């Protein structure tokens, strides 16, 4: 019960802080928008090509923007050593991980939902032809990136090159999520049957469950000095 209360408290605190500063969402949006513009002018694809490559470009933009957001999100805990304050609380240290994971996922999802129509306009694509499935892919892909990213942002917070360390740790391990999310999105954008995406969606769900549990269990050790 104390874990749940602490998780909700940390999540609510992050929402309040973000509502006040808009640090994470503004950084992710600006970066994602810049990438969308750069990709559009670099490729100028035909309609057929756009459907084939948009999934990849979309998730590359989301992933790099997420790295920026995750760094910003954890900077809040390193200022004034607030993370130490969280560690003093009489709750399972895993609650810190779960609270930060929820807020990171929400901020990234929000930014992706804003960026998606921008990509749709630039690439002349209807990204919401299958809205429920698209939302599911976004949720599973974003959760997977956030599950790893929250863990590694805590690891990199204790290093000197924090901003550099997070992508070094996160990007190699996020490759499976990236591939599955790209493949699922590409299926949704094409005329291929949904069954083609089923395997990738199952993979994403499995990845999310395994890495969320693993990171939650390991997080207390990451916090120890």
């Amino acid at each position, binding site marked *: 019960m*104390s874990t749940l*209360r*602490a998780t*909700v*408290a*940390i999540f*609510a*605190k992050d929402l*309040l*802080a973000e509502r*006040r*500063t808009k640090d994470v969402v503004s950084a992710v949006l600006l970066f994602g928008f810049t990438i969308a513009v750069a990709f559009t002018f670099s490729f100028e694809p035909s309609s057929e090509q756009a459907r084939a490559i948009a999934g990849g470009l979309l998730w590359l933009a989301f992933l790099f923007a997420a790295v920026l957001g995750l760094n910003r999100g954890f900077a*809040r805990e390193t*200022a*004034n*050593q*607030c993370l*130490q*304050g*969280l*560690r*003093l*609380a*009489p*709750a*399972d*240290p895993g609650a810190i991980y779960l609270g930060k994971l929820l807020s990171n996922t929400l901020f990234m999802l929000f930014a992706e939902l804003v960026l998606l129509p921008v990509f749709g306009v630039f690439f002349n694509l209807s990204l919401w032809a299958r809205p429920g499935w698209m939302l599911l892919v976004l949720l599973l892909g974003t959760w997977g990136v956030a599950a790893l990213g929250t863990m590694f942002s805590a690891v990199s917070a204790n290093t000197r090159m924090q901003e550099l360390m997070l992508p070094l740790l996160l990007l190699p391990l996020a490759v499976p999520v990236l591939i599955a999310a790209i493949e699922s999105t590409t299926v949704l954008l094409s005329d291929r049957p949904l069954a083609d995406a089923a395997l990738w969606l199952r993979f994403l769900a499995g990845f999310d469950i395994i890495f969320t549990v693993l990171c939650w269990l390991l997080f207390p050790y990451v916090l*120890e*000095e």
Partner: protein
Amino acid sequence: MPPHASPDLPPEATSPRLHLRQLSKYFGRFVALDRLDLEVQPGELVVVLGPNGAGKTTLLRILALLQQPSEGELLFDDQPARRLPPAFRQRLGFVGHETFLYDELTVEENLRFYARLYALDAAAQRVGEVLGEMDIAPRARSPVRSLSRGLKQRVALARAWLHRPGLLLLDEPSTGLDPPARARLFDWLAACHRSGRTVILSSHDPAESLPLATRALLLERGRLALDLPDPPARLKEIEARLQAAN
């Protein structure tokens, strides 16, 4: 911080007995604490003195369960610290060099957040009480980033006092406070002590802190150089020893 701020002790906030057995802490080759043996009984007010780098902060951080010893053992009520459940931290309150406060949130929002983390009943009421006790109620709606160092320190003390812990660990708590606020701080510490709580604080200024103390410890290069009862009666002796260590 009025001297009457000495609330009754709830069962979960009773003072634990502390025992350090041959406790050492290394940072690479640097020995921060060197085979410390120490027992602190519930209700003591211990002042830890020592020059910079003597190990005062490391000792307090280990007692606050924020750092693990490299060797030796820390026991609370004869239980090894590493085996204690997270709920045990309800009995600890810690103020370090950093405030652990979120700059973008107001004073009240910070305290409410910590009250929720500590699962306090009637959190809003308790936050109102500590705002009054620490004399920061007029700044409750101010963002922490807009406060002076001294006011931030008072909010940090309020944060550590929210859940009325049985063991208060304070690392140079008078840092940044002006003389009247320092006087109120030590009145408040005396009241905490009178209520049966254990207080362990580090200080650079024996004249300020020792009149309250029931025991003084002097650390030198991580070693316990002096462990004296009744420090107010031995102020000159302790000051001379501290000066020699500096």
